């Protein structure tokens, strides 16, 4: 049973690791691009979490096109997948905007070091 619990919760362990890794990257890396990557890691952690929530053992994808016979009545609710897709779409916009800001900051400051990008303070 012990090994089983780890097997069942394996995706959630990975989610926790990714969350920790993401926050570590945001909090302790000095390069702005790496900080942006940290946000992306966080985002993938949350997406993985949502997808893992939607998993049902023995469930089928909720698509009727050419589905196997057994699938009828065994389909999972597609809400977590829909949430994940929406979150991915938003993530694309966020990362594009962040990188655009990073490019502009590099042009004006000549550096991507976060400790030196702080003209606004106090």
């Amino acid at each position, binding site marked *: 049973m012990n090994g089983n619990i780890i097997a069942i919760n394996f995706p959630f362990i990975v989610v926790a690791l990714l*969350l920790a890794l993401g926050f570590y990257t*945001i909090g302790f890396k000095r390069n*702005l691009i790496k*900080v942006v990557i940290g*946000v992306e890691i*966080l*985002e993938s952690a*949350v997406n993985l*979490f*949502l997808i893992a*929530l939607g998993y049902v053992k023995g469930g089928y994808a909720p698509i009727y096109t050419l589905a196997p016979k057994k699938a009828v009545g065994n389909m999972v*609710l597609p*809400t*977590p997948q829909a*949430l994940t897709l*929406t*979150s991915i779409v*938003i993530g694309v*916009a*966020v990362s594009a*905007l*962040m990188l655009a*800001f*990073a490019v*502009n*900051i590099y*042009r*004006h*400051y000549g550096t991507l070091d976060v400790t030196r*990008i*702080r*003209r*606004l303070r*106090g």
Partner: protein
Amino acid sequence: MMEHLPALMIAIPLFGAFTTPLLKKRQNIAAIWALIITVITFGLSLLLLQEVLSKGIIVYVFGANKPTLVLPSGYRVPVRIIFEIDAMGAFMALSATLMSFIGALYSYSHVEMETGLEKYYALLLLLEVGIIGMVLTGDLFNLFVFLEVAGIAGSALVGFRNYRGEASEAGIKYLMVSSVASLMVLFSIGLLYGQYGNLNMAYLSRQIHLDTVDMIALGLLFVSFAMKCGAVPMHYWVPDAYTEVPAGINPTLLVATYASLYALFRVSFSLFGAITWNMARVGWIMSILGVLTMFIGVTMALVQKDVKRLMSYHAISQTGYMLLGVGVGLTVLNDPAKLSAFGRAAMAGGIFHIINHIIYKSLLLMTAGALFYVTGTRNLNEMGGLARKMPYTTIAFIVGAAAISGLPPFNGFASKFLIYETSYQLNPLLAVFAMVTSVLTLASFVKVFASAFLGPPLEKYEEVREVPKPMVTAMIILAILCILFGLFPNVVLNKLIYPAVDALIKLAQYQSWGGLV
């Protein structure tokens, strides 16, 4: 058509946001077009408010056969995206649309010389959509989507002046903060979905019970929305973003901040109502955060030299009043005697302060924008003697400064009066902090007034004239609103604020979609 008002509230600004980029060649027309759209949306939100006040909670189900068909036959749980509008949401939507209109009017002259204006107005309308969606929705995931829409549009606007490096810096700070906060919101939404298999707030709030996972979700939602509304000590992004954003966007960005505050209230009162009802802890956290916020915000404001930065720190400090007022109400929520004695009035004070603060802080930030427009600097040390050159701006500034410091008979006094009295009854120390903050606020605005407007006229500002008419009009409208809200606080409270307070307190009504089920 009245039943489709909630959908139109989203559809019309979206339509405006998508058509504005087509007017790339004629940026003047884009500005006027955005102004028209914001006026229409403002009218719609007035209609919506009237509907809500007369008929109670409005429910709108997207994609159903009928707008009120929450549970189609055969379903026991709601599956569609549902907008659930009570008086609180309608009140926030009204402030959002009003401020977008003022912002668009002000922007017409303020950013005239910049390029890429069609994107500016598209983003302004998109920000408005984000706020309206956040405050009208009854679906937890939809809340996240609109939160992100508002965050992305807002940060793009913060970085609008891309020839300034500081603007990009402020933009990436705001975007980083808002995206991390929204991702944690999404994470807690995932936790709640995993627990209960639904995303509708009214349905969820009936099922939530005291459970470790639920408490983690509550904590994450609470801290994320607290960061998005600028509570100390997570307020660092506020001065950066407010300072660098063009002054025409400031009103809308303020409302975006308070939309997060609204989400915080919604989470504490409605979503987790069943828990927080019995737990004064959440209310105490909110009150203490509020006191910290107002005190640290105002003391930081005293030492600022940048006029917009000074006002942004005041925005933080005033957020503390709202947190304090509503936190006091939340603390005594499970005690009917205390609730009717002072809790309800405390919440009314906090919520009344939202609209008051939006009005006068927008006014002040706009006067700061006008100062920047004529002098080209935001440094107070380099200003002086502008009062005679810019009479309207000066009058607007005096009204705003008097209102924010709580001088009668302006609107700030009425809400602060309620907050002082009620927080005194919970704990006298809270009221002392609130009063000291008010005194320090007055002190720091005396500083701005003395250094920017008074003093001998400086030679370098010989040529300065009053700002163009649209900017003056926007400021004068807000100044008049300041005075009106101050002179008739009772009317506003009875018509607008107490219905909103009751909407937050009456949990059962929210849970049943206004009596539909």
